[in-house]
């Protein structure tokens, strides 16, 4: 492959990733409550950064002939951890009783974990006595 072809491929990858990141950032602002925002913050942002990193990896690998283990590790790392982080924050939000949007039609967890007020009260109690 000559240089321009590589540049085109890398450009497409980077632009795609960046636009995904931008979309997810706007989603973080525009969506109504924390549970819907979690979609924006974790799914699309992760995909965006993965695509961008792949672009960088291809650039260094193909044009400069430099196979960067660090980037591969970075890609694997972000791929593994970003969903887990999203899951943890989302669970923490639900358990600490952050309210759902008014337009929500169904909440399957409510019978198990209690109503929003109960969860809020429990969370306040946990914060007061951390080592119960």
């Amino acid at each position, binding site marked *: 492959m000559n240089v321009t072809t590589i540049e085109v491929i890398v450009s497409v990858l*980077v632009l795609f990733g960046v636009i995904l990141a931008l979309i997810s950032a706007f989603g973080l602002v525009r969506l109504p409550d924390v549970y819907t925002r979690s979609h924006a913050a974790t799914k699309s942002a992760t995909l965006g950064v993965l695509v961008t990193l792949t672009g960088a990896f291809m650039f260094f690998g193909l044009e400069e002939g430099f196979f960067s283990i660090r980037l591969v590790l*970075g890609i694997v790392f972000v791929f593994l951890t970003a969903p887990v982080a999203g899951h943890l924050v989302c669970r923490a939000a639900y358990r600490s009783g952050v309210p759902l949007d008014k337009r929500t039609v169904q909440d399957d967890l409510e019978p198990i974990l209690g109503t929003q007020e109960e969860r809020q009260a429990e969370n306040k109690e946990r914060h007061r006595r951390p080592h119960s």
Partner: protein
Amino acid sequence: MFDVVLLISLLLLTLSILVGLYRVIKGPSMPDRVYALDLIGINMIALIAVFSIYMRSTAYLEAVLLLGILAFIGTVAFAKYIERGVAIERNDD
């Protein structure tokens, strides 16, 4: 042409970081802020990757993994704090 694309990408990433910053400041709840911080961290990873392509230098690539580690640990600690009221548990029972 390639450099212009990269510059535009840098600009867009900066914009998305700023947009995330709005969510950090506004809230309204703690998990919202944590999500926004996580997003900022991930966007910074992308920023460094694009920047190192722009500089044609591999010297910045350590920071990719390093920022990923820091963002993940920060998010996990925040999430556990919100949920349990303590980040590191003792398990004394």
